[in-house]
């Protein structure tokens, strides 16, 4: 039940969200982008939209990587913009969401240090965060080893998972234990930030972010099994133990060979459109398409949150999900055009589907 107080609390943010929403690309623009012949044409269209800043002076010979990096930076900026119009536990939730980009940069620093890249080379890998970060990036990039890099993070909230995983890193000499520890910590932080909300906010956040965490946990469990052949115990260790819809029993069931489609149907019924994978029998081939099906489902949830009563947290979350997925789709579109993919193939790989 929505109270009058919540309406007042979300009145001002709602006006901003409506303004932000107008930046999202329309169905007509998407249709034209998908069907246009080449990359240059797609770039021309995008330069007439709100993405002109990210595209800069892009030409046929320019590198798409720079544009992609800027687009990821824009996704981070979108979260900061929403943060700026919220307060309290809601703001904290968006802060945690934004830390995803900081975490992505931190992982890039770890990889750069492991590969002995120069600080300048590492800097080029980072997503632009417009200075909204408290980590000492320069000192981090100058570290010579992973263990000294971990110690340099002492005093930040990253240190505990890193210290716990550092023995596993030493054994395997792979960044995987460190990265998965950071990922697990991050998604636990998101779940904690969601659980601190109350009333309708909690329900909406659970619907949008809770579902996201469920999707990721199920996908992680399948990825561990299908592509890396991990044992049930290892898979339980490398996934989230309890999310909104998943627990260790479900993860164990996945690890022991459950069909991905059965698990998804059981969790979400017919809400997830699995027609894209209906003809596939091998999980190795099926998984990438299953991911797209689940992302489309998440997008549908976000669209639902944005429709109806507007003065709510769900509208903000919905906008952020849509903008993040739109950026994902733009990368797919630009890459697809760059590789001369036909429109059908591009459409197949997009999260965006015409309603």
């Amino acid at each position, binding site marked *: 039940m929505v109270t009058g107080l919540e309406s007042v609390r979300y009145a001002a943010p709602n006006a901003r969200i409506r303004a932000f929403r107008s930046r999202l690309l329309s169905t007509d623009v998407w249709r034209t982008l998908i069907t246009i012949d080449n990359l240059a044409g797609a770039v021309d269209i995008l330069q007439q939209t709100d993405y002109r800043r990210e595209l800069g002076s892009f030409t046929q010979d320019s590198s*798409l*990587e*720079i544009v*992609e*990096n800027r*687009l*990821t930076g824009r996704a981070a900026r979108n979260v900061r913009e929403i943060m700026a119009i919220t307060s309290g536990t809601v703001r904290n939730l968006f802060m945690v969401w934004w830390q*995803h980009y900081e*975490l*992505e940069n931190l*992982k*890039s620093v770890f*990889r*750069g240090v*492991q*590969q002995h*890249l120069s600080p300048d080379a590492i800097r080029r*890998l980072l997503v632009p965060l417009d200075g909204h970060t408290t980590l000492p990036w320069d000192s981090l990039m100058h570290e010579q080893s992973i263990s000294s890099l971990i110690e340099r993070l002492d005093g930040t909230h990253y240190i505990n998972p890193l210290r716990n995983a550092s023995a596993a890193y030493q054994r*395997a*000499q*792979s*960044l*995987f234990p*460190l*990265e*998965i520890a*950071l*990922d697990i910590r*991050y*998604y636990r932080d998101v779940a904690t930030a969601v659980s601190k909300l109350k009333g309708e906010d909690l329900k909406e956040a659970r619907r949008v972010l809770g579902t996201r965490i469920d999707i*990721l946990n199920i*996908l*992680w469990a*399948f*990825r561990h099994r*299908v*592509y*890396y052949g*991990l044992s049930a115990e290892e898979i339980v260790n490398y996934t989230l133990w309890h999310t909104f819809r998943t627990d260790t029993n479900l993860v164990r069931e996945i690890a022991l060979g459950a069909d991905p489609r059965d698990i998804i149907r059981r969790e979400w019924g017919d809400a997830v459109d699995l027609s894209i994978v209906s003809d596939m029998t091998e999980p*190795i081939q099926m*998984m*990438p398409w*299953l*991911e797209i099906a689940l992302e489309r489902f998440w997008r549908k949830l976000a669209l639902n949150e944005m429709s109806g009563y507007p003065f709510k947290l769900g509208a903000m979350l919905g906008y952020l999900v849509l903008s993040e997925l739109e950026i*994902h789709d733009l*990368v*797919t579109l630009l*890459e*697809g055009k760059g*590789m001369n*993919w036909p429109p059908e193939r*591009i459409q197949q*790989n997009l999260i965006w589907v015409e309603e």
Partner: protein
Amino acid sequence: MPRTKLAATRSNLILAKQQLALARQGYKLLDRKREVLMLEIMRVIGQAEDIQGQTNEQFKQAYAILQQARAAMGTERVMRFALSRVSDVDTHVTPRSVMGVPVPEVTIYAPQSRLPYGFGDTSVVLDRAQHEWAEVVDLLGPLANYVTTVWRLTLELKRTQRRVNALRSVFIPAYEETVRYIEATLEEKDREDLFRLKRVKSKTATIAAPSSS
């Protein structure tokens, strides 16, 4: 056919005959080696073609999936994640012998743990790309074995064929010609000697006849 430059003597005839016998024996052996090499190449080439076909297909598939990963995550992020490779691939080359031809036995040790990155900000398709490229690496060892074996055996076959041809078309005919020439020369010499002896004998008989009368 030019013959060898040997003086027409009996000892050279013996030497030429020995050389001819040796050349014929060598020819037989090399011809047999050529046939066995040919059979071995035909056997290995079939396997090499199979593995080459498999590798081409796997490369095609791996490239297609890599393209899909680039589309799903962007080239920039794929490159960032490519930095978290577990370790380099170890390659060991041990020599072995096929028909006396040294060929390498290439073994590729891919990293045991193939979990390179966290899953929080990566797409499933990147895992699939990694999986497909690992399959490519697994095929490269056998492909290197077969291709190098075919290549080395073919070189050896070419060399053997050249030797067989040289023996058949140059050495054996030359020694046969030499033997024929020396034999003919020696026969001619023998006939001359016989004729000379007969002349001497008849002359001696003519000189002896008046003195006795």
